[in-house]
């Protein structure tokens, strides 16, 4: 068997591109932004690799998102190693078609060795190598980069099985637009960016929406004249490292902030939705037939989010003052507390209240069902230290707060890919020189 090390790169690589099997120093699984960023960084180090992609470049953006979705980060922030947005609307937000084009252009720009339409069915350890089995062949390599993303499998609570069959149930992966839904009321479950955006557009379509929210993160789109992402970036919040956070596990699992990317740069929060007629209920705790029960903790969920937002705005104001920007910017402001009402609804009869659809915007999780390595914890999460997985030569990338707060953002891929490709390169050097590998993350 050929050694996976010291494989040809650059023009010689071309000859391999149509092959469905082979040997490389590294295999990247997934051609989303994180996988492409990693590919670029490996190429810079002349590390021979292939990217195995179940569909096409940017597959999830292309095929698994709803029609109206735009990025939550402004265009000026869209950058990948050696590449950045250079269009005429830096403050705008890309549609999914635009994101797909951006990724396609990037894949061409870096000459990414993508094997499209190739589904990985197994990754196994074979001595010092890994065997990556796909539906089209198999690859041997010394290192594997898992770049399949954090958002591929919708999480739906088990109580969904108790919902009567007369009610249509779907997840954001299957949802495209309101026309797909039956007429009548819609219960949207989930208070993250997804839940709020879908509640908003479904309510606008004339269907009356009930929105169930638990713990959530509230943010204004624009603060003191600048996009909230600008502030988070400038004040160093997005660069906070995973080793600087006192409760990393919690930081890695906070819901995505309630944001929407629109040409008007509008703020989407619970108050905006209730003003539009959306009915707010707390976290859905139980379903039995047509009867639903919601938690009695809605006012605390909202109080926690309001307080957390104010702490962030305090931090931003302090930073702006220290940076000498206070005089040149609009004054600081605070937003009205989230309106909950004195007695929020605790139980709802789905049929009597006219609800015909339940949309489970209850989050996504990575799918590692193909990963035949003992690297998952008891909750099915991959064990890693800043992307360096608990199995030599295995790396993961693109997860929330993986190495820093921005890790799951498009622009967050670059710093992570640089550091992980350096680690990966050192590992390969070590293997090829026959030294014992002992470097820690």
């Amino acid at each position: 068997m050929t050694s996976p090390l010291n494989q040809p790169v650059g023009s010689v690589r071309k000859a391999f591109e149509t092959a469905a099997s082979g040997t490389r120093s590294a295999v990247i699984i997934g051609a989303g932004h994180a996988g492409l960023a990693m590919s670029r960084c490996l190429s810079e180090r002349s590390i021979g690799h292939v990217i195995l992609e179940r569909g096409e470049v940017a597959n999830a953006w292309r095929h698994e998102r709803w029609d109206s979705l735009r990025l939550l980060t402004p265009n000026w922030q869209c950058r990948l190693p050696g590449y950045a947005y250079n269009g005429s609307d830096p403050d705008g937000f890309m549609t999914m078609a635009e994101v797909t084009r951006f990724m396609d252009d990037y894949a061409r720009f870096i000459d990414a060795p993508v094997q499209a339409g190739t589904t990985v069915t197994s990754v196994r350890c074979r001595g010092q190598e890994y065997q990556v089995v796909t539906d089209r062949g198999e690859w041997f390599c010394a290192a594997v980069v898992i770049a399949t993303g954090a958002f591929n499998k919708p999480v739906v609570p088990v109580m969904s099985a108790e919902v009567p069959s007369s009610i249509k149930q779907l997840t954001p992966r299957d949802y495209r637009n309101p026309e797909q839904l039956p007429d009548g009321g819609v219960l949207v479950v989930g208070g993250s960016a997804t839940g709020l955006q879908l509640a908003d557009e479904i309510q606008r379509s004339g269907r009356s929406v009930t929105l169930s929210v638990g713990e959530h993160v509230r943010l204004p789109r624009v603060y003191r004249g600048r996009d909230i992402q600008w502030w988070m970036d400038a004040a160093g919040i997005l660069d906070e490292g995973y080793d600087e956070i006192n409760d990393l596990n919690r930081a890695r699992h906070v819901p995505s902030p309630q944001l929407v990317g629109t040409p008007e740069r509008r703020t989407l929060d619970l108050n905006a939705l209730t003003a539009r007629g959306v009915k707010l209920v707390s976290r859905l705790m139980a379903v039995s037939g047509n009867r639903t029960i919601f938690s009695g903790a809605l006012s605390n969920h909202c109080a926690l989010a309001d307080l957390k937002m104010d702490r962030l705005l305090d931090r931003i104001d302090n930073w702006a003052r220290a940076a000498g920007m206070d005089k040149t910017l609009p004054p600081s402001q605070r937003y009205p507390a989230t309106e909950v009402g004195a007695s929020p609804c605790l139980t709802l009869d789905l049929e009597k209240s006219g609800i015909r659809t339940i949309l489970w915007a209850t989050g996504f999780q990575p799918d590692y069902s193909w990963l035949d390595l003992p690297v998952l914890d008891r909750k099915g999460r991959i064990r890693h230290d800043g992307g360096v997985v608990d199995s030599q030569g295995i790396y993961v990338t693109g997860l929330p707060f993986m190495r820093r707060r921005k890790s799951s953002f498009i622009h967050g891929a670059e710093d992570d890919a640089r550091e992980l490709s350096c680690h990966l390169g050192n590992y390969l050097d070590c293997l090829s020189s026959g030294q014992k590998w002992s470097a820690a993350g």
Partner: protein
Amino acid sequence: MNAQQEMVVNNGVNVEAILEARKALTDTPEAARFQWRATCDWVNGTHSRSKVDGFYGLGDEQRHHTEFRFDTDHPELLAAEDQGATPVEMVLVGLAGCLTAGIASVAQNRGIQLHSVRAILEGGMDLQGILGIDSDVRNGFDDIRVNFEIDAEATRDEINALVAQSQKRSAVFDIITNPTNVRVTVK
């Protein structure tokens, strides 16, 4: 670091021990399985006496230092002898104790010195429920209000955050606000 943070904050909570336990129980989830118990004997009329003594946790049987006893009864205006708090008042007692313990712990962890904490609780109830007068009225509280008066070395927002965090981590708050399956059997 400012002068306030340098002061030794003491709310009587051993946060280090709690954080150590948290870490230990993260690694040994089976030790985190606890079972809380109470036994109750009927005395007479609506008067009962409950005892709390043993519980299970950290993989073993555990005991309180002493056995605690609680009398429950109904007030005289409900034709009872008023030998103790009503059971629903005991629920308020549980909620108050839990939220207040949470506030002290979170304050200690955040380096906030408490001077005084008082919670005033009110639970609204329509007796047409338990008396079977109107089947549309539920038996239990239709509304619980908790009002805290807190004197602490902290800003208003920091105090609000303490109260919010203690609700987020409170067992009794969760028990009251979310459904729990209850199995009642007869031997």
